[in-house]
């Protein structure tokens, strides 16, 4: 499988991306498509038993139901052989983004703080939501304007971000909250919080700023056919960062 396409060639050096496939991942193709076909980068699947991420510039943990999520979302995926490599890769400063089930897995493995509990209302929610960009100085958001509002879908059962009050304050004080659920005008309100997440948190980074976890699906809003392509600038931000721009 080779997803390298030459749709856009704004970068001289093409970055190399890996998309992890756990048994039960189901947004892997979507991520490969967004980075490969839409953004013109080299993107390849990484099998969960692989033990080397050599030569990769960025890694995506995609959405889905790894191992069926019959235990707790991401709780088994964190033990997959590839995860040890991802922890090391992140430790070396490599860019890692976990989307939906990927975010859940990153919290389970300890690369990101917090936990994703069942949605308030106890139902799966698939819906377009608005999220506000809180930080534009991360490798993931440099193409956005401060406070910019993205319209982007969520599709999850367990997206209710939780952290005890002390660590939550720390997370906020460190400026690790990157995306918050908001309304159309960028106001962070209780009504715009779809799943009960504390402080309307939709996405966070680690202290080093190189690991991002988010519940909404930017890869589903890269192709204009599917709606306003608000998600594409997230991947292009990363591409810029990797190209040293």
């Amino acid at each position, binding site marked *: 499988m080779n997803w390298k396409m030459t749709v856009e060639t704004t970068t001289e050096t093409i970055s190399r991306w890996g998309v992890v496939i756990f*048994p*039960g991942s*189901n*947004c892997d*193709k*979507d991520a490969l*498509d*967004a980075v490969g076909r839409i953004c013109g980068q080299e993107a390849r699947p990484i099998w969960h038993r692989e033990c080397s991420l050599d030569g990769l510039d960025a890694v995506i943990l995609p*959405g*889905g*139901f790894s*191992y*069926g*999520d*019959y235990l707790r979302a991401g709780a088994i995926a964190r033990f997959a052989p590839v995860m040890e490599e991802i922890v090391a890769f992140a430790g070396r400063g490599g860019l890692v983004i976990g989307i939906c089930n990927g975010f859940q897995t990153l919290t389970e493995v300890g690369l990101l703080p917090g936990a994703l509990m069942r949605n308030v209302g106890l*139902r*799966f*929610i*698939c*819906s*377009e939501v608005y999220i506000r960009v809180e930080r534009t100085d991360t490798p993931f958001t440099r193409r956005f304007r401060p406070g910019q509002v993205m319209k982007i*879908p969520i*599709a999850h*059962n367990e997206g209710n971000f939780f952290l005890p009050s002390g660590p939550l304050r720390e997370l906020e004080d460190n400026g690790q909250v990157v995306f918050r659920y908001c309304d*159309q005008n960028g106001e962070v309100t209780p009504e715009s919080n779809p799943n009960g997440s504390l402080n309307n948190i939709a996405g966070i980074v680690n202290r080093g700023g190189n690991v991002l976890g988010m519940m909404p*699906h930017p*890869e*589903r809003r*890269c*192709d204009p*056919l*599917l709606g306003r392509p608000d998600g594409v600038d997230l991947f292009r931000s990363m591409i810029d960062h990797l190209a040293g721009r």
Partner: protein
Amino acid sequence: MSATQTEAASVRNHLRSGTLAEAKAQGLTGEEFERIKDILGRDPNVTELAVFAVMWSEHCSYKSSILELKTLPRSGGRLLAEAGEENAGLVDIGDGWAVAFKIESHNHPSAVEPFQGAATGVGGILRDIFTMGARPLVVLDTLRFGALDDPHNRYLFDGVVQGIAHYGNCFGVPTAAGEVMFDPSYSGNPLVNVMAVGVVRHDRVTRSRAGGVGNKVFYVGSRTGRDGIHGVTFASEELTGDDEAKRPSVQVGDPFAEKLLLEATLELAKSGAMVSIQDMGGAGLTCSSSEMAAAGKVGMELDLDLVPLREPDMEPWEIMLSESQERMLLVAQPNREEEIREVFERWDLEVVEVGKVTGDGILRLSHKGRVVGEIPAWYLALGGGAPQYRRESRRPAGLDELAAFNPLDLPDTDDPAGVLLTLLADPDIASKLWVYRQYDQSVRTNTALEPGRGDAAVIRVEGATKGLAVTTDGNGRYVSLDPRQGAVQAVVEAARNVACVGARPVAITNCLNFGHPDKPEVFYFFREAVAGMGEACRALGTPVTGGNVSFYNETRGQAVFPTPVIGMLGLLEDVSRFVGSAFQREGDAVYLLGRSGGDGLGGSCYLKTIHNRIAGPIAPVDYDLERRLIDLLVELAETGTAGSAHDVSDGGLAVCLAECCITRGENPVGVTVDLPPESTLAAHLFGEAPGRVVVSVSPDRSGELEELAGKHNVPFRRIGTTGGDRFRWSGCFDISLTELAEPYYNAIPSRMEG
């Protein structure tokens, strides 16, 4: 008894002859029992009897329906497989692509256990699609429940929706269309019809017929347990088992296992290592093995000791009849066995060689070193030697009276605004956002038009510029009044719906939900509905690719509304040209295309909701007009002329226009309509006469629209202009969009979430 004694008793038991009483207990008739003896030239043993009983059941043999189904148009230019020939229908969409699609019911399991019943319904239809080598692109669900004021109906509705969500979301297929309706007739017997659509390259289609004498037969997927063994009720004293055999037979779905099966199966379909593969669905190993053998005109030997079991000491008949989920049977190409093992094992799935293809046409089962069954496969299978009956049909006494009722004799409405708000709050018409919000609609990034945004879902064909438009339609209320016209309307509305989003209707699948086929009145509805469906499909050039019949939908002797559900496939050559149903901009010209024949109040939502009556004649369909309308709608989409298109159906023109205003999401666009009544106000606003579509166009393109309508000879009339935040109909009402949206969006959540 010692273990050896138990085993010996068990062997004696399944080798002894089955009796007439046992045959009857399993649903066979005395005549059928005699026929089995003739076929075998001896008495069947208990295992063989159980195999015959399930294969000759209505569910597997279609014995009451097949003669009627044979009257349907089942071939045509784009069909790559005749109806019933493969696991699902197969249609060519050009450039080397084919679409596999099918709809199936899971009504009774869902009535008993709504969550797992619906979930396993999704699982079963998905396997039918990917066993053909096709990756499922989209799932649709047609649901019917009793009225929501009954807590049990709410429990069923909630459970079914969550079950569908659980399975589809985890498997990773968008659930992006369908319909939900409510009527007391469905109380206790909900309808859960699931349709799946997949795409495959022509050269990677995997067939279901076994072939190649000596080829190895493999069992893959989950283990076999005692779940789902029903229709087989041996008296306990005649078996060695006791209460163990009677445990509740609820099948439990495992979408994770199914996802692994999908990926492994598609990998092997691509490599060509399999001769054929089939899902073990209804009647499990029995059905898959006998149908594969019969279709390939070969035999098959199975060693039941090799079948992976979830619990030890299962009897041969239990192994053969188990309906444990997420299992498949496949025939390997010679010398490709290792490749097959490698792929399934890489996906952490069990893969076991359990038999081989033989040349004698016999399904031969062995167990603990003995042959426990030898049956000519052809006699078991649908389309082979399974029985077929012509059932008695009688027009029910009250139908003429119902049809003679003239809705125009009722006093006309004097509160059109109030009626409109009432209709928008009717759960049949109200937004189903509460339902589809629980379904992942956009996974795999191919969903161009999501539910609630258009008259059909639009899905990109992965790797191509083409798109598919899919919808399901079927109004049981209409069919209960006039089965022929009701079925015609279902086909025609489905075709119009896909045309509204810009697709050309290509072919249908169908799910026919009726009561007991032995009741002549029930069978009359069935026969007439099949005839109507055939007539409409011939008229529109959309052949029937296959489908499913579900009889026995009754509670306390009362049948559900006769409900034929049509699943329509439409094709867009350029997926980016799709058209949604909501008004897009202020200042667009609004047109009514087509022409109404009759008042359209017979069987209407208006009569049901306002006058509490289900009666009246069902409006006739003008096929010529419908065909021209379809051509026009497709051209309006292809040329980018139409800003929106929405067909007039439940609730009539007023509801249609209200939906155009309020379904855009934030920033809805209102409309001012000027269309004076030609008949009663009720018929004018709420009549459901077919053949009508509301489109909006930007003012600079209205000339183009009129020209195209003229070219296709479709009557058109400019009825208004979009803009503002109100729905104004001069002389009728003037309502704010907020006021319209409130009942429309809250009707279902307020009932379900209290």
